[in-house]
């Protein structure tokens, strides 16, 4: 009986070998996948053992912080500034994905980033759990509040919109918000059922409050597109602001085919010609449709791309973090003269994000140099040492300085004498452009305003305000809100 007993011994060895191989698979090969599995509550528990870092605004106001609790998860996330900042700051729920800065800078806030390695080594010796690092944003509370409250209290009763304010010289994002928004606090409740219900409520609410419309979606830019057409015309060298261009009340790019281009009112530009400056000031559709067709699709698309259209890679956090992308803007199909004419006045298939539109205003104010927009100013270690500061970076130079100067004059004319008068700020040189985007049959038009404010030839702020389906007068209301946002930015920079 010894031979079969030995063979039973071999069978036992094989059984144990199977166990060993399988354990290696589970604890070795699959370890990382299991560790980070969404059903794994352990990682979460250990994450909540450490006080998560704070998110602070430019003036030091706390937008997100963790407070000690007595339950299993040691720290409760809180967002004292609420809805106005919810989409930018984001939220970090107990289960499910984080959003906004909470997601983009998660490693740093959680204290697990490589740059906080020395902190963790210190922990090994002291036995403490040092809090995660703090993220200092470029967002200015006054500007952001002006933007959010401006949108909320708009006189057109619009419930959906977005606003962006940039520092044209650096690309710092001073305000970034959209309505409707949501209170992030219920979404991060440690009671996951309540948090889930709050999420479902926010996710299914009208107007998609969870979406940061300023960067997350694209809309027909309407007459704000005329700035790009003007830039293309001026850059071609064949036009100056004083060059007369054909206008009239109706224009058919291909006679007998498609809808003719008309103007917003028969009094806008009935004359046979008017200067480029005058055309922009009154927002003459026929003139710009014609101008676009004259320039040709290539010049229009190349200028749009020079400003950042079709760029799907732009992100707005620190350096190369991919988690807060800006939706790419598109010129759409320009293959046909009718399409090109419609697109030249920002209709047909042209789609632009409010952020892209703000960037165009900022580029013009900054003498043709487009700065990369960014939200994260500094990363701060738990001991308050600054670990890194985001350096402003030139993104593109779509237009020459003299073209930028000409465009500035034209946009100032819009605010002084044209459709953007609501944005005027006494004592400051303010330029802008409005837009009223047709948005399908029967629906109310979107209202747009892009603009900037300068003093002593130095740009201070550039803005974009977007009011979804605002109807008649929407662009004038957008200009008013834009003016207030710029006013807030100016008051932050002091009277000089």
């Amino acid at each position, binding site marked *: 009986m010894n031979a079969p007993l030995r063979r039973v011994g071999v069978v036992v060895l094989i059984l144990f070998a199977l166990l060993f191989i399988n354990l290696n698979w*589970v604890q070795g090969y699959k370890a990382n996948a299991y560790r980070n599995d969404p059903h794994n509550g352990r990682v979460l528990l250990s994450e909540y053992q450490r006080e998560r870092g704070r998110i602070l605004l430019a003036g030091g106001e706390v937008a997100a912080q963790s407070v000690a609790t007595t339950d299993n998860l040691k720290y409760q996330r809180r967002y004292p500034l609420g809805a106005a900042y919810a989409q930018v700051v984001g939220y970090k729920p107990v289960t499910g994905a984080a959003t906004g800065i909470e997601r983009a800078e998660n490693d740093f806030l959680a204290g697990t980033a490589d740059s906080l390695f020395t902190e963790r080594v210190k922990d090994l010796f002291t036995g403490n759990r040092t809090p995660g690092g703090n993220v200092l944003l470029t967002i200015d509370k006054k500007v952001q509040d002006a933007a959010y409250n401006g949108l909320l209290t708009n006189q057109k009763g619009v419930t959906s919109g977005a606003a962006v304010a940039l520092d044209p010289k650096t690309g710092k994002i001073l305000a970034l918000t959209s309505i409707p928004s949501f209170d992030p606090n219920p979404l991060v409740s440690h009671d996951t059922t309540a948090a889930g219900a709050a999420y479902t409520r926010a996710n299914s609410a009208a107007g998609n409050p969870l979406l940061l419309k300023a960067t997350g979606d694209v809309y027909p830019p309407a007459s704000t597109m005329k700035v790009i057409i003007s830039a293309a015309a001026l850059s071609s060298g064949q036009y100056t602001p004083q060059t007369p261009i054909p206008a009239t009340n109706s224009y058919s790019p291909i006679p007998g085919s498609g809808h003719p281009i008309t103007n917003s009112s028969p009094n806008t530009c009935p004359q046979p010609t008017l200067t480029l400056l005058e055309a922009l000031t009154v927002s003459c559709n026929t003139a710009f449709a014609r101008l676009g067709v004259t320039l040709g699709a290539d010049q229009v698309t190349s200028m749009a791309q020079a400003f950042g259209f079709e760029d799907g890679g732009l992100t707005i956090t620190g350096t190369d973090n991919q988690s807060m992308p800006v939706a790419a803007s598109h010129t759409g199909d320009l293959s046909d003269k009718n399409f090109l004419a419609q697109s030249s006045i920002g209709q047909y298939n042209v789609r632009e994000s409010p952020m892209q539109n703000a960037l165009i205003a900022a580029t013009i104010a900054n003498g043709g140099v487009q700065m990369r927009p960014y939200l994260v100013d500094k990363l701060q270690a738990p001991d308050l040492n600054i670990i890194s500061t985001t350096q402003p970076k030139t993104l593109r130079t779509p237009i020459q300085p003299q073209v930028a100067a000409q465009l500035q004059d034209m946009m100032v004319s819009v605010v002084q004498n044209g459709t953007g008068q609501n944005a005027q700020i006494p004592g400051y040189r303010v330029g802008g452009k409005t837009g009223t985007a047709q948005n399908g049959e029967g629906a109310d038009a979107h209202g747009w305003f892009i603009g900037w404010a300068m003093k002593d030839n130095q740009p201070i702020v550039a803005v974009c305000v977007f009011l979804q389906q605002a109807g008649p007068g929407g662009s004038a209301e957008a200009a008013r809100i834009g003016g207030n946002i710029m006013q807030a930015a100016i008051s932050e920079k002091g009277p000089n």
Partner: protein
Amino acid sequence: MTAATEQPVSPVPSGSAQRRVPTRRNAELLLLLLAMVLVTVFSAAVEEGLTGGVSPDFWVPPLLLTLVFLVAHIAVRILTPYADPAILPCVALLNGIGVSFLRRLDLGRQPAAQRANYSSFAGDGFHQFTWTIIAIVVAIVALVIIRDHRTLSRYAYTLGFAGIVLVLIPAVLPGRFSEINGAKLWIRVGGFQIQPGEFAKLLLLSFFAYYLVRKREVLSLASKRILGIDFPRARDLGPVLVVWGLSLMVLVVEKDLGTSLMYFGMFVATLYVATERVSWLIIGLLLFFGGTFLANVLGATVGGPFANFHQRVEIWLNPFDPKLVNTTGYQLVQSLLGLGTGGLFGSGPGVGNPSKVPFVKNDFIFAGIGEEIGLFGLTALLLVYLVFVERGLRTAIAVRDSFGKLLAGGLAFTFALQVFVMVGGVTKLIPLTGQTTPFMSAGGSSLMANWLLAAMILRISDSARRPVVEAPAAAAPKLSGLATEVVRP
């Protein structure tokens, strides 16, 4: 073949009876103390991990354990002086780590501030410690009563009958007296519950060993040759079919694949060892896999009593299925996630979150420990189990009588199978079953049964290594194949 010709590792050539054989008891003591040092370090690490410091009386539970195991060691010195020296230390290490881990779970349930003051005499850890004392006492009593393992063969039919009754009791009892978490494996009276299957295992095995020693000639010689393999006659298949039916009944009525696999594997293995016929293995494996396959298909189509098994197969195939992951598959998923989180080195004793896995104190204790001691720790733990099994098989090879060979071999293999079924279950190698992890899971029945198993192996290994004083052929041949059941102790 007689037993006397078959003792390649017998320390003393039979005949030269008076030469001194080392008992190896001091080696056992040394190994035992080493094991207890490990248990003590583990307990200290647990306290450090859970409370951030080691309390001044952390050594109380490990010391009590050490004392209890020392008593067991002394009993071994007196009762089985020639027993294999590795068996008791292996058992003590596993049992000690088990008790310490249960205490770790107790501490983990306390609010952080009160952990440092948690009594050494409370909770599941202390409960398990009490069971350890009882189990060791029972094992010692068994060693006192059974001075020669061949005594068991005298009562083989009684033991076998008792075993079958124990298996059947939970099946016939109404669910509220026998069912816990879907498996009808228990006898529950008041607050007290035992798992009779754990003991039935030992009793049935004693019977198998006796029966097969008697029948081995018939079973191995009377055969038909088909395709170069000797197959038994149809009428000799009777007992195999009876056991097969019994284990399938366990699978269906008691809803437990593990126990079923255990009985059947145990029987087929002893049958194979007794007859040395591969055909029995083939028949056994075909019957078992055919049976489980059928049960799975029936579970999917007919449902009813087979549904439970089918459900377990479904969980096994894809525990992360969205329909299962938070319901019936939750346990296995959490087990895998815990093991994965532990990774190679583990989170450290007391630092993980084993309580995330439901039933971590009994069925899933291996996953709970695995999260904290990692792949390397688990590998070490499994090696301790393997050493125990291989020492058992070694005992089977060394012992002189056929009954002892079959009994020791069967015990060792059954133990190995139980470890395989349990560890394989919680690591998704095979469908999950309701087995306990020997010596570690919380629960008196399992602990007591496994200590009895260890005692039986100690007893047989003592007889294997004991120098032969009287004429070696006095007792053994009588048992082998003869009709008489009289065996002199």
